[in-house]
């Protein structure tokens, strides 16, 4: 950015092509922003259209703010339950991912112990596998232990997806909190635990929350394992997938819109962390 400004000041003769270049850049950005937003907008138009408008021809590009499609969706048999299930599975996934990932991340950040690299490798390895496929053998195991078609069973599979992220995110989060702060607390009479609780935890809390939200979204959006593992206790994604052939258009579009709302809200909440999260998680 700075280089651009200085060269422009030094070479006024080149200012003209720069300006047209900037115009080109602005229009490219505008086109790409539209490419992302317009399809979402159109789904929202459908979701806020009346049941009749959704199947009408030709379609209006302006939403009519009619809630009948959404009401139809909300009252459709199985939807409220599926919505609740999605929330429960995602919530549980979030709790388990953080509960398992935070201690492991702390250990990786603070101690160099034999086996640390092996553990890190094992965590990274999970990333190179199509994890939802692991739901296949787990159906058999879950039937044996009574976890088939349960919220917990599915949350366990989703935790396999989300926990490796949580470990890596936590490791770098704790690494970014100076160890000296902890040591100072010890010299002032804190135990390791109380130093962690009073010094490290408050500093780490926003990052932990962001990692938790991340885990929530991973679970909320997951389709394959959810569809394979649940029958009666379907999540929203499993429900929508399995009713694709039979569901009327308003149900599909309202369902799609409901599916993206929490994800967008959460993403907005963690936008500050997004790049550090992904930068870390993909190193």
């Amino acid at each position, binding site marked *: *950015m700075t*280089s*651009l400004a200085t060269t422009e000041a030094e070479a006024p003769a080149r200012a003209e092509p720069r300006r047209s270049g900037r115009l080109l*850049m602005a229009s490219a*950005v505008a086109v*790409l*922003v539209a*490419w*992302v*937003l317009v*399809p979402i907008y*159109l789904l929202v138009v459908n979701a806020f259209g009346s049941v009749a408008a959704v*199947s009408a*021809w*030709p379609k209006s590009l302006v939403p009519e703010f009619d809630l009948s499609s959404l009401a139809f969706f909300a009252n459709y048999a199985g939807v409220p339950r599926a919505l609740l299930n999605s929330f429960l599975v995602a919530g549980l996934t979030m709790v388990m991912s953080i509960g*398992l990932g935070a201690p*492991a991340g*702390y*250990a*990786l950040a603070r*101690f160099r*112990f034999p*086996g640390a690299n092996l*553990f890190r490798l094992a965590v990274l390895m*999970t*990333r*190179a*596998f*199509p994890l939802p*496929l*692991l739901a*296949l*053998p787990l159906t058999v195991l879950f039937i044996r232990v009574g976890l088939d078609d349960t919220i917990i069973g599915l949350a366990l*599979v989703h*935790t*396999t997806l989300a*926990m490796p992220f949580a*470990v890596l995110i936590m490791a770098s989060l704790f690494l970014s909190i100076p160890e000296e702060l902890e040591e100072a607390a010890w010299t002032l009479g804190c135990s*390791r635990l109380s130093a962690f609780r009073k010094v490290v935890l408050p500093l780490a809390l926003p990052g932990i929350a962001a990692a938790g939200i991340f885990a929530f979204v991973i679970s*909320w*959006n*997951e*389709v*394959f394992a959810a569809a*394979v593992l649940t029958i009666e206790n379907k999540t929203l*994604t499993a429900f929508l*997938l399995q009713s694709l*052939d039979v569901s009327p258009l308003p149900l599909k*579009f309202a369902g*799609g819109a409901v*599916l*993206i709302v929490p994800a*967008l809200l959460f*993403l907005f909440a963690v*936008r500050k962390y*997004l*790049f550090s999260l*992904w*930068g870390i998680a993909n*190193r």
Partner: protein
Amino acid sequence: MLRLASGEKVLSYVLILPASLFLAAFFFVPFVQVVVEAFTGEEGFTLAHFRTMADDWKFGPALANTLGLALVVVPVQITLALVMASLVTRLERGRDMVLYVFTIPLGISDLAAGLIWFALLEQNGFLNSILYGLGLISGPQNLLDYRNTAALFAAVVVAEVWRATAIVLVILVAGMGLIPKEYDEAAEVFGAGPLKRFFLITLPLLRPSLQTALILRTILAFEVFAVVAVLAGNNLPVLMGETYSWQFDLQDHKVASAYAIVILAISLAFTVFFLWALRDRTREAAA
């Protein structure tokens, strides 16, 4: 970090124990189980499930479609993400806002993305309505005709590019942030234009991020499932969809596991290929 009192050693193992046990129980064990399921019958080792899989007429198309989709989608995503990342890093105002918008699809599931594009492409959908409004067509066209495999393929490509370019973008933007500005500035001082700087400075220095993005996106591309289910139903078979229907509709876990092995194998093969193809050659030369 370098001190290692025995108490700390114990503490670190206590801390990683729950996560390790969890990974063992829900990653390694099921992984071994998939392999066992796929390769064993009532009389021990067998390739019968793979034969059943390969004899099904849908296997060939499913494999071809999955590989074909990955082959088309991933390069488009990498290119588009490079364009987006270059634009964003050069923006002087509104950088964060634009980045946020570009990354929105990151939070959208493949199922929702499929539904979003279904709203555009279905017979009474928005694309037809817009084309009709512009006087380009006389009535609703069936864009997702089940007999037109090429059109279904194209629809899935568009939806996948729309949905999953964001993850590549995030990896590349994070990677670009690690490249020292001085290199680019030095090249500019020596008279290199923006394109030359991009291809000779940015792109080579971005290699580790590109490698990560390629591996991650290719593996995810082989998992393509819900987008296809929404836009093409059963008319564009893909590996993950076949796995699902053998497992859920046909209730044959063995053949489903065989499909899983195929997906695992091609994922692993491509991971190894990208690790090799994009390895750090400078270090090799030094050694």
